[in-house]
């Protein structure tokens, strides 16, 4: 592993672009806020948090196809053979010089995005037991189906909590076992490499365009898919 050679000078290079980092931390904040607001019976705020999360997820999906190299699904979603091969190297005490998600981390990203997406979609159709605060698309389903969506919303949140625990455990594992700090690069965007990965980053106007598209779709959903 290149990471074991201490004589090589390290280069600091950009890994995560601004949009990816903003989406990450905004999701952390809004998911926390959504959890708190529903527990505090602030359902209106809970709905706003949900719309925000929907917008972020839509943007992240767009960015996964059209964004910077390290944010693209094609750069980090690997097949089972590559993923298994990487899993076998997990116990090594070095994180290697990979620029971006490793194959296991890539699948973790996919799982978390899927879980959050299912969380938002089930919320759109969910009907609360008092029939007062319901998702913006709940008028498309019956009362009982809406109640079922509400239960799935709950089940899906259990899955998210488990994935977050796994995510945090992995970060702790990389910090303690592999001496790799995964948190700082997600804050600053920069990471030390043995060799500069020379990643390609998408222009800001593309991010603005993607954000505009995500916001427009979110607005449309908020309005109950009516224009």
């Amino acid at each position, binding site marked *: 592993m290149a990471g074991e050679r201490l004589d090589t000078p390290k280069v600091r290079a950009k890994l995560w672009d601004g949009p990816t980092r903003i989406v990450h931390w905004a999701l952390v904040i809004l998911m926390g806020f959504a959890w708190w607001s*529903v*527990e505090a019976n602030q359902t209106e705020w809970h709905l706003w948090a949900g719309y925000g999360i929907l917008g972020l997820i839509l943007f992240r999906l767009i960015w996964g196809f059209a964004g910077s190299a390290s944010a693209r699904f094609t750069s980090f979603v690997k097949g089972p053979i590559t993923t298994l091969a990487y*899993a*076998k190297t*997990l*116990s090594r005490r070095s994180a290697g010089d990979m620029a971006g998600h490793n194959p296991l981390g890539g699948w973790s990203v996919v799982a978390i995005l899927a879980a959050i997406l299912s969380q938002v979609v089930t919320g759109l159709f969910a*009907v609360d*037991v*008092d*029939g*007062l605060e*319901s998702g913006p698309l*709940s*008028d498309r389903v*019956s*009362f*009982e189906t*809406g*109640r079922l969506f*509400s*239960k799935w919303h*709950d*089940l899906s*949140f*259990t*899955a998210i909590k*488990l994935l977050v625990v*796994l995510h945090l455990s992995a970060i702790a594992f990389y910090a303690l076992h592999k001496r790799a700090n995964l948190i700082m690069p997600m804050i600053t965007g920069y990471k030390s490499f043995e060799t500069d990965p020379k990643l390609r980053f998408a222009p800001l106007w593309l991010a603005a365009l993607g954000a505009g598209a995500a916001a427009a779709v979110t607005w449309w959903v908020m309005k*109950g898919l009516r224009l």
Partner: protein
Amino acid sequence: MAFQKTLLALCIAAGLAIVGGGVSAAEQKAKAPTTPGGKAAYTRQENFKQQGAVFKAIRDELKKDAPSMALISTSAVKLKNSADALPTWFPKGSGPESKYATDAKPEVWTDPVKFASAVKRLQVEATKFQTIAASGDIGAMRAQSQAVGGTCKGCHDSFRVPEEK
């Protein structure tokens, strides 16, 4: 190797927990009531589902730009009748002791005065809604539907087992 096996075991455990939760929830629902108390609890749940559907129909209609007055006034009558019948849905023995999966708290029967006043609030607001529905004032209907829903919530907060969030 031991580490990877632990990781794999953790993932499998997490997966099973999710599936298990879903299955146990489905099982609870499928259990058919056999006792009189259980049957009463079952009927109560069906009645509440219908009431919920009627109230949802009103709320959905009021979300629209041009709500159907006919639908709202028919639903308003159904809602009022349902609210009036509600006290008969809680016969003694249909609580948790019925062993049927019910979210009705024992307080329904141990604090009947408070329960009756909570039900009364629904009946009053549902009656008001029916009157307002006949007036054709959509803004007032929207406001009154909030008041009706508030009485659902008020009663649920005290007499219904809170939902897991």
